[in-house]
């Protein structure tokens, strides 16, 4: 026990509440963001022990340098065809996002979420995984579906909750689901998909399958108990899973410091759980591809899970319901020191002599036309504003495989209520 005098001489305790570096009205300030040189991170063998990945959790795996040249041990040495396909998919995500954002503003749907600036996170991962690997995404990985050639009109019908929506108008826009594309239904309850991804991977291992799972989570949702649940289970059972943390710096209005990202990195959490960790430049499609491939190879070789922090920036608001100008400086994304993922991959391809401005312009025009055609097709089946999905019978279906008596009664009552009219 300390004496009364000693106690008197102690300083008053104070609570630390983290604050971001800049607020509205302040100059954009990314001076605290340390950017290691491209190619400087070591690339260990896939059978590295998790503890030895510790240094990789505090640096950034980067492949594309400032001149958009691929450098260092993580260069995945992709052929130009694959590079062009990744560029195409990323450009498609951006054009699709822009179009659907506008559709929301036009009253055709209630809600939309863009992934501007984060396109490499999902697209490059999709290319590094096998088509039948199972994805447990968040709401900002629409790039997975686009890279896996999911029909754009199907996505739009879901966004519109229209007659063509295969989810029957039950889910908030962009909460897609597609079993055939290995894209698990998105939940609005954050982090729930993370232990599910681990459970799926455990099942694959139990059955002696060769498919692996990949989960995504945002920096903010790593604070959820389900993050801890997932990494604990993944580590304990060495589940064949890739656990991606998309650190786009913002959880709606809350900067990543409130999720515990101020004095450490999200990647560093891996090592404490006995998991290999990598911290990756999320705006560098080649680095994302290489890291995902490395993690996939580990998982497929029964070497266990890998946690990958994808360091990026949410350039737009959280969703159509958000206005970031009230909590951070305007246009902060334009100064993000890791640049724009599409511009970087495009410059890389041009540097290789495999692409040029004219081809890029033609690509964007072709993608724009494709998106407009899909939109026209989707809108034939209605929008949320006009001709949304409406079917009382279906509203009561799929709660259970069979319809129990109480739901049948409620369905009949709902139908009678509807028949009586207003």
């Amino acid at each position, binding site marked *: 026990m300390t004496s009364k005098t000693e106690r008197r001489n102690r300083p008053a305790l104070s609570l630390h509440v983290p604050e971001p570096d800049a607020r509205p009205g302040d100059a954009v300030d990314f001076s605290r963001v340390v950017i290691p040189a491209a190619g400087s991170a070591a690339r260990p063998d896939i059978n590295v022990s998790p503890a030895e990945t510790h240094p990789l959790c505090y640096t950034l795996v980067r492949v594309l340098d400032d001149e958009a040249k691929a450098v260092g041990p993580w260069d995945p040495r992709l052929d130009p065809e694959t590079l062009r396909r990744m560029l195409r998919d990323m450009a498609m995500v951006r054009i699709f996002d822009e179009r659907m954002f506008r559709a929301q503003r036009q009253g055709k749907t209630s809600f939309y979420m863009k992934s501007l600036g984060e396109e490499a996170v999902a697209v490059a991962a999709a290319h590094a995984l096998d088509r039948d690997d199972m994805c447990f995404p968040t709401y900002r990985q629409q790039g997975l579906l686009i890279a896996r050639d999911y029909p754009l009109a199907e996505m739009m019908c879901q966004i519109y909750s229209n007659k063509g929506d295969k989810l029957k108008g039950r889910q908030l826009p962009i909460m897609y689901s597609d*079993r055939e594309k290995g894209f698990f239904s998105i939940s609005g*309850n954050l982090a729930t998909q993370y232990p599910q991804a681990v459970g799926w991977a455990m099942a694959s291992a139990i059955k002696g399958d060769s498919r692996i799972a990949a989960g995504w989570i945002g920096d903010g949702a790593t604070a959820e108990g389900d993050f801890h649940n*997932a990494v604990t289970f993944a580590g304990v059972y060495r589940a064949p899973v890739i656990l991606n943390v998309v650190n786009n710096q913002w959880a709606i209005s809350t900067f990543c410091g409130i999720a515990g990202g101020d004095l450490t990195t999200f990647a560093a959490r891996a090592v404490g759980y006995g998991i290999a960790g990598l911290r990756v430049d999320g705006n560098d499609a080649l680095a994302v591809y290489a890291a995902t491939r490395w993690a996939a190879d580990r998982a497929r070789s029964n070497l266990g899970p890998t946690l990958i922090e994808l360091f990026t920036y949410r350039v737009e608001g959280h969703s159509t319901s958000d206005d970031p100008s009230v909590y951070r400086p305007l246009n902060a994304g334009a100064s993000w020191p890791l640049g724009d993922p599409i511009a970087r991959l495009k410059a890389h391809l041009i540097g290789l002599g495999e692409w040029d401005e004219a081809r890029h312009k033609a690509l964007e025009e072709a993608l724009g036309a494709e998106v407009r055609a899909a939109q026209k097709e989707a809108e034939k089946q209605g929008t949320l504003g006009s001709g949304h999905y409406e079917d009382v019978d279906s509203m009561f279906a799929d709660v259970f495989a069979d319809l129990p008596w109480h739901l049948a009664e409620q369905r009949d009552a709902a139908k009678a209520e509807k028949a009586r009219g207003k």
Partner: protein
Amino acid sequence: MIEALNSAHDVMMARDPDMVVFGEDVGYFGGVFRVTANLQKKYGKTRVFDAPIAEGGIVGAAIGMALYGLKPVAEIQFADYIYPGFDQIFSEAGRIRYRTAGEWSVPMVIRSPYGGGIFGGQTHSQSPEAFFAHMPGIKTVIPSNPYDAKGLLIAAIEDPDPVVFFEPKRIYNGPFEGFYERPVTPWAKHPAAEVPEDYYTVPIGKAAVARAGEAVTILAYGTMVHVAIATAEAEGVDAEVIDLRTIVPVDIAAIETSVKKTGRCVVLHEATRTAGFGAELAALVQERCFYHLEAPVERVTGYDTPYPHSMEWTYFPGPARLGPALRKVLED
């Protein structure tokens, strides 16, 4: 009853190579109540294994396994510990079929010992069934004897939807009539203790008439079925005791048939009173049998307090609480 539940696991693991069992202490040790004893030895540790103490992780991983195509049967060591898994049950397991329009479903069973009567204190005695009854997409099953326990668990394992399976731990080793001062009776003498070794099912959603009678209907499940029968006999009341066995979907036809016949109804459960499942039962009876009722529906339940350790028998809705309620509905 423990052997019956163990046998249900054994029978189904032998029949279905996709069935896996996991939970806290269920592997090598065989579970704190021995329900999963010897299963790891027989089926191997990739099909029967211990889980970290993380109920949210247990349920979340079970969902992922079910999505893959396995049939997970997860144990939550005590129902009192199920709450960290609540989000995964309520927001995920119960809704995945609906939100994917049938593209995915999560056939899985979450088993958990529940209820009081073993001096478990606040954290080993709770009856949280009403929370699960309130969840769309979740079936909730509560057996009251060894025969039903095995048949219902097999039915739950075969069910295409997630099932929460509460096992009244006070009756694991013998029926309990609520007369706590009397010696414990083993299952051996009970007619429902005769459990076939092989596969059989007891259908989910079907109640049983545990005691036929004419004067009053007692709606009960789990341990309370035994309390109801014993109290009726001690009071000399010709009560009809309906063992609901499943609370969602509840067997409304069985309830209606009995209450319309007797014209009187007492609802009995161990869980806390306010917004307990008894409130739902009382409302259903009122909606459907009002013109047949001779007296208001009575609810006999636990109190709206945490389950107190030393005053367990003051809390427990035994014969001392049920008896007067029966007399009251018969006098009205």
